[in-house]
């Protein structure tokens, strides 16, 4: 395992890989078992230190004192619990690999990916009707998207700050509940909405740009400025824009009354979920999620490479009478990510989508195919 990148995750991988080199000195002539135990402790410490970066509350995030205290307490409880979870996950990795002495990056990498997936699950999970009601209030609060600090926990707490006061107790209780589920097998994660639903807001914006009418509530000036600035292109990595757009679409769906509230909330959760691309170092990011055709073979998406995502995506293609591509969409995914076993790899499940869709446009792919045909794109990382 070599150090990759300079971003947060890259640094974490490197730290973990370096553990054997910076282990305890041999002055007391420790046994091999003691050395391994010390290495494990060091690895847990580096894991916890890495996880803390997601659970910090920067001082410049404006929070009521009581909310800040409650949030600090919440983070502290979670990190204490995590300290006991990491050794369990290490044991699981060793058991899964059949190597009781698994160490270094081979061990730390799946652990990190496991934790990243837990972060994503946290952003998607449904905590019950009371929490859903509270999150609907939070999501629709005018200032919900105004402060989105980098640490993910701080981002959620900032949204709680923006929520109506009467929703706060349920939101905080919900956070405590959801965080307590880390490391467990979830029985009922909300299913990923259909691509058409996830793309509906962008479709509506396209219609607006074309001067066509749509059924939607008015946008905030912030969102209107972001979307209709003549010199600016939509930026999927701009979390404020994504948040404001998701909020607008949620409000529009609820106002329309044709969509179930919990479905609308699930769509909002998926639209605002924790984005693993935030963890990709700048040196990798520009090409992440894209596929470059090289000698007729698509390049493996760098983001998927970075997170070791493999598997099969099934693409459905619509064609016209002449066999020309009309639309392609990913209809299912069977993916594997090291360290992610008990739950679907929700954090990583779209990282092969764009490249898979590119395959639909590959010359020859559509020859003599009727509309609605499906094909499997198989993605395997080469050693």
């Amino acid at each position: 395992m070599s150090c990759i990148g300079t971003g947060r995750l890259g640094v974490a991988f490197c730290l973990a890989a370096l553990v054997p080199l910076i282990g305890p000195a041999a002055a007391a002539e420790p046994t091999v078992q003691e050395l391994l135990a010390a290495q494990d402790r060091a690895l847990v410490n580096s894991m916890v230190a890495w996880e803390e970066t997601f659970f910090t509350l920067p001082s410049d995030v404006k929070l009521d004192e009581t909310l800040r205290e409650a949030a600090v307490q919440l983070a502290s409880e979670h990190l204490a619990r995590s300290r006991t979870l990491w050794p369990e996950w290490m044991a699981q990795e060793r058991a899964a690999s059949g190597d009781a002495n698994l160490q270094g990056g081979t061990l730390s990498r799946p652990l990190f990916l496991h934790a990243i997936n837990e972060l994503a699950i946290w952003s998607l999970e449904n905590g019950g009707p009371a929490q859903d009601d509270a999150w609907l209030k939070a999501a629709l609060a005018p200032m919900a998207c105004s402060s989105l600090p980098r640490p993910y926990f701080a981002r959620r707490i900032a949204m709680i700050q923006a929520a109506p006061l009467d929703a706060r107790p349920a939101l905080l209780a919900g956070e405590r509940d959801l965080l307590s589920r880390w490391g467990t097998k979830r029985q009922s994660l909300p299913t990923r909405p259909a691509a058409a639903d996830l793309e509906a807001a962008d479709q509506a914006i396209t219609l607006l740009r074309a001067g066509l009418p749509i059924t939607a509530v008015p946008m905030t000036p912030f969102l209107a400025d972001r979307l209709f600035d003549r010199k600016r292109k939509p930026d999927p990595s701009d979390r404020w824009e994504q948040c404001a757009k998701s909020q607008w679409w949620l409000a529009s769906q609820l106002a329309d009354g044709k969509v179930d509230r919990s479905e609308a909330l699930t769509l909002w959760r998926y639209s605002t979920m924790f984005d693993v691309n935030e963890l990709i170092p700048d040196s990798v990011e520009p090409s992440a999620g894209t596929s470059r055709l090289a000698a007729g073979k698509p390049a493996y998406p760098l983001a998927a490479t970075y997170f070791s995502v493999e598997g099969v995506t099934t693409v459905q293609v619509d064609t016209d009478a002449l066999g020309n591509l009309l639309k392609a969409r990913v209809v299912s995914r069977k993916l594997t990510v090291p360290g992610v076993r008990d739950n679907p790899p929700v954090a990583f499940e779209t990282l092969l989508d764009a490249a898979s869709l590119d395959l639909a446009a590959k010359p020859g792919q559509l020859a003599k195919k009727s509309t609605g045909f499906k094909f499997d794109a198989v993605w395997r990382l080469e050693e």
Partner: protein
Amino acid sequence: MKIFRFALRLSAAALFALAAMQAKAQQASTSNAVQPNVVGLVQAAYRWGDFAELERLYAIYGKAGVRSELTGFPRVEQFWMGIGKINNSSLRVSDEYYQQLDALTQQWAREHSQSVLAQLLYAETLSTHAWAHRGNGFVNTVSPAAWADFQKYLQLALAQLRRTETLAAQDSSWNAIMLNIGRGLGWDKDSLLKVFQAGITKNPDHDGLYFTMQTALLPKWGGDLESIDRFIALAVKTTRAKLGLEMYARLYAGLSYAEVDQTLFKTTRASWPSMKAGFEDRLHRYPHTDHRNMYAYFACMAEDRPALQEQLDLIGDKFDAIFWGSNAERTFEACKKMARQV
């Protein structure tokens, strides 16, 4: 319609700059006292669509007679400055941006039918949309289609103000918005003066009404300098007991910034001794470096070296280009050189 034949450059940008220089002192506090950043608070609330917060802020800062303790700037104007950061007709956005603002503020006006602010904000937004169609160019740069849209949105804004007059016209901001609409629609001077007079009667501290009215009287809006001289004389008569000659100084300064630049003392009846007394009156109440920058700029223009030197000393390193005309840095250097020649 003759106003539009002679209208040269739209005054929206000049108005904005003038208002900005009057309001910016809010951010540039030289005091240790914590001053609310009204412009920023309003801008943030509006930007994120927080009408409840806007209503709360307007209840505090929209009241007649509330001024910044630091600069003396009316809070109600700072409130509308914050709105103006969003309702800005000069943004590089497509028309959909203004359509969304129209829809949002219309929704607020409908949902809060008894809110003065909601009704005013919708009218102000429609007016902004109109000016966005009009653009900042000379009148002969406006296409017929843009002109038609300009008129259409001004008429919508006018209709909104008239529809809600019973409720909203108790607020002098109603008159401020109406003055801008009337100017755009080419109302005659007397009609505009009636709107102005009604507004200043409601809130004598709404300084911005004087400047909005003065803008409508500018030569580039079909007015003339004699009318402006008469208007300033009227303003001084109305405000002298409370403000001394402050409005004299500020209105002639405004005329310079908006139209005549460095020729103020050559092409108008502006009297430097009166302006000087006005700046002194203002500084006596609000000794802020912004006001000193403005004072120094005109002292230099009037070649009053002692006054210039005194203010330059007091300004120190707090030079602010916004008060020093179109070629600010060079003008400032030249003025400093002149002051040293005492």
